[in-house]
């Protein structure tokens, strides 16, 4: 154990950073306890250290700290939290401290919130289909246990409703296993947190869930810690307790803004849009904490939610997220304006783990081909709509008109469903076939003849 010395010599305060002078024996990444004149305690972490100065980020922010009267104690280890099953059913702040009035969690097991990188050799490739009851997801962008699948949304769109619907309806087809939700709010308003909590309560999941709240009024720097604290608990529950954990992180855009703030107060050279060059690696250190591990029962599935500034998917936050996650569910303004719920965009959405989690014995044999054909045909609808906008619908060929009809029905029947509507995968695929049967048989070139014979519904009047 290192002796803990208190330093009182601050040479500066800038944004969320304090500069402590004359330090000895301080380690990079060390945890720091900071006390101001009135004895209030804050937590920080050492970002940089040389023989003279330690640069410390203060998670609660530096408001109310002064150069004189601030005392810093360096604790020779990284930030750790207690982990225990007892944490389920509880509400914590952004740094993992209880805010529900119940006492502090006590556990012998203190875990470093930064976790450790999972050895790819010991990972288990995720393959178990999670039925969310939402056709656009189950049918075309299947969620797999252990996947990281974000929702790319825009302001005002119903990403929270969708995430709550997933949390409520998600289930495995094959087995009944212990399931829990960890909800992580970063920089969102209280009413959004309230909505999730109520929704978890209604479905009876709340007593088995843990909630971490770093709300809009909390210091922004705290948000950098919140997902790490939550994922540390998730890792404990999944890989020690064998539970299946669904982690909902909202809103990752706020998280990234905090990182940008920290980076700029350190005077770092920014890369795109002022975000630091290491945004990719930083996000990866959060998202890669999802998955399955060989020989362990549990899993961590992540659904990060992010709002794309001005609906721009090439903005660094969605862009770098897309480069790390295993697909994305993209919400589309046009569908939303048409009144489609859930407004899940047909083409840019993708689940990369879908391929190994569906098919015979998992969902249904025709699943992959139906999905591929729906994607291809809907892509064609988009092309024809663009053309129709110019030449007028009347000028289109008969086949093109059929495609337009297919497109409209697809949006109204397949994509659209109720907030409480929970469709089985069979229902989803059957609706898919209804849609495809609007098209002439020859158009279904992504589907085997055998499946066409089995599922295709000849239209009345056709021979």
């Amino acid at each position, binding site marked *: 154990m290192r002796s803990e010395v208190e330093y009182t010599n601050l040479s500066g305060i800038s944004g969320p950073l304090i500069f402590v002078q004359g330090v000895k024996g301080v*380690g*990079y*990444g*060390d945890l720091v306890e900071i006390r101001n004149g009135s004895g209030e305690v804050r937590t920080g972490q050492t970002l*940089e*250290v*040389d*023989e003279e100065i330690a640069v410390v980020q203060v998670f609660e922010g530096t408001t109310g700290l002064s150069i004189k009267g601030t005392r810093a104690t360096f604790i020779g*280890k*990284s930030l750790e939290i207690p982990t225990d099953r007892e944490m389920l059913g509880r509400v914590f702040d952004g740094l993992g401290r209880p805010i529900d009035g119940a006492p502090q969690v006590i556990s*012998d*097991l*203190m*875990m*470093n919130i930064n976790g*450790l*990188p*999972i*050895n*790819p*050799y*010991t*990972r288990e*490739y*995720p393959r178990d289909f999670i039925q969310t009851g939402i056709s656009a997801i189950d049918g075309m962008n299947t969620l797999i246990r252990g996947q990281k699948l974000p929702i790319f949304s825009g302001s005002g769109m119903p990403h929270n409703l969708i995430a709550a619907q997933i949390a409520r309806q998600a289930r495995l087809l094959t087995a009944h296993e212990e399931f829990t939700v960890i909800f992580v709010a970063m920089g969102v308003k209280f009413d959004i947190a309230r909505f999730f909590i109520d929704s978890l309560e209604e479905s009876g999941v709340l007593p088995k869930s843990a909630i971490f709240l770093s709300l809009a009024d909390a210091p922004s720097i705290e948000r950098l810690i919140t997902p790490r604290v939550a994922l540390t608990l998730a890792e404990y529950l999944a890989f020690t307790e064998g539970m299946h954990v669904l982690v909902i992180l909202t809103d990752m855009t706020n998280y990234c803004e905090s990182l940008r703030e920290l980076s700029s107060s350190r005077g*770092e*050279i920014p*890369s*795109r849009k002022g975000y630091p*060059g*290491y945004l*990719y*690696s930083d996000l*990866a*250190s959060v998202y*890669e904490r999802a*998955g399955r*591990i*060989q020989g362990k029962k549990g899993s961590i599935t992540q659904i990060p939610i992010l709002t794309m500034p001005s609906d721009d998917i*090439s903005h*660094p936050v969605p*862009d*770098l997220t897309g*480069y*790390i996650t*295993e*697909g*994305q569910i993209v919400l589309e303004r046009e569908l939303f304006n048409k009144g489609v719920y859930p407004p899940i965009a047909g083409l840019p959405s993708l689940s990369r*783990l879908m391929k190994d989690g569906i098919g015979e014995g998992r969902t249904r044999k025709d699943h*992959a081909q139906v999905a*591929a054909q729906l*994607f*291809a045909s809907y*892509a064609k609808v988009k092309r024809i709509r663009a*053309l129709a906008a*110019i030449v007028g619908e009347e*000028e289109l*060929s008969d086949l093109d008109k059929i495609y337009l009809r297919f497109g409209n029905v697809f949006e109204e029947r397949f994509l659209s469903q109720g907030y409480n509507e929970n469709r089985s995968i069979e229902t989803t695929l059957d609706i898919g076939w209804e849609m495809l049967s609007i098209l002439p048989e020859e158009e279904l*070139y992504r589907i085997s*003849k055998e499946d066409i014979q089995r599922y295709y519904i000849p239209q009345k009047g056709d021979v």
Partner: protein
Amino acid sequence: MKEASITGRIISVNGPIVKAEGLTEISMFDIAEVGPDRLIGEVIRLEEDLTIIQVYEDNTGLKPGDEVLSFGRPLSVLLGPGLMGNIYDGIQRPLIGIAERCENHTLIGIADTCYIRKGIKIAPLDPEKKWDFKPTVKEGDVVKEGSVIGELQETELVLHKTIVPPGIAGKVAFIVEAGGYSIEDPIYTVIQDKKIYNGKLADYWPVRKPRPFKNKKSPITPLITGQRILDTFFPIARGGTATIPGGFGTGKTMTQHALAKWCNADIIVYIGCGERGNEMTEVLNDFPRLVDERTGRPLIERTVMIGNTSNMPVPAREVSIYTGVTIAEYYRDMGYSVAVMADSTSRWAEALRELSSRLGDMPAEEGFPPYLATRLAEFYERAGLVETLSNEEGSITIIGAVSPPGGDFSEPVTQHTTRFIRCFWALDKILADARHYPSISWIESYTEYLNDIQEWWSERESEWRVLRNDAMNILLEDNRLQQIVKLVGPDALPEDQRFILFCAEIIKNAFLQQNSFDPKDMYCSPDKQIKLLKAIMCFFRKGKELLLGGLELSKLLSLDAVSEMVRLKSEIGNGEIEKIDAFIQRLEYSLNSLKEEVNIPHTPDFSKGKSANKDI
């Protein structure tokens, strides 16, 4: 363990960059072991008495005053038998070994075999395993650098040749008899002018230093990938360089995996640089099960993996591509053709950017250091078809993925990379969104190897280049016509142009599209590629004649053979391509019968054919 010869102490820590003093005799790129856990680092800069070290492991907890040690050796890769089938992190620590080693540790009360802890030191190659070695020289023989002195079967697929390292030559004073030896056993001794070299089965080589060869040659054989759009339209030669740029989810990794699985190189080095853990797991799961068509052996037996995933320390990402390419050179020097896949070079460039910014370098474009282009050039320059030191032919083909921010190819990494590669396989977001896979754009992609490798194909099909060019022209013409279609719709075009649109659609669906999950279609042999292309072009050529002869377009489009053509790729396997010949015959027959119709002038025909609603 040997005593460290050079010691110093840390004076500052900023992320993975550590500054130390007192290491007066240390050289650039030497290994430095840092702090109480002796974390592996490398000297990347020397400034007066300051030594700047980049640390390849998680370095939280390091503090000023901590000790730094060095043996005065450069950061190196251990080259020897046992590399095949292994998976390493960026600094060649075996991930399998790490998992096994962690078994005996519990860090925080729970067994954490699944995590990579810092400070673990494990030999890259098993020091105990005995290899069945057969010498090919005898005592008294004169050998030079690159000479083969013996062989062992590393895996069923790979005959491992033990070669005299560069810089060593002389008379063989000692060589073991055939038998079982480990990489630590003495194997041979070479003496020249009193200089004695004691050789073993494995040897270190500095990771940043290219291994020497005699000379470079121009590539002449294609690297067959089994991917139609690549082999037929944008082929790469053995010893060539290619890049795959594309936004997220457009298919870089899928393409790299397909190449690693099916390309006809002897050895594959797959570098996962700053990408997903699950993608490495997928390779680890699939490759032992997938069987090489030519040899019937599991693909893992010819594959080495470097997995420095996005959540592992960033500096190790920077070095991982050098680790990979050094291993590739080692097998090239045995006379093999090696293919290196690096996914993604952008993550490597970003690691470079992050480290250089912590060093306070002045950035050039988008924060990247000014030496980005030089580093990229150096990397791709390590590809090539060469005459090895022992006068054999070996090659390294490098295929690097690039992940441009926002999918915008005008960014620095894509731009600089295009200067050093000769094959550009551009991924297209629009194709990916439409689930047209592989989403490689036939408009933006290019290859400079067409003339080099043409002969190889012409030997199989004399008309190959013509077929390929005609098909390419249809696609280009289609691209031009689509601009008009966007404005006026396809029906406004004359019939011959609508026919082009139609044929382009067939090429896209029946040829370019190739599903990596379809067991019959995931690998397409060169012969099957030729036959499929022939079928399509037969339809195009004959169809064009018929149209000129006055046949109505709708008659052509509604032929049953047309919808059959789209399914050939997934219904006919590589081993039964005579079925495609049979199809072509049927196609010709039905086209010929249409011809008869044309010959009956001015007779309107209402009796046959379906309604013509097929103007794709």
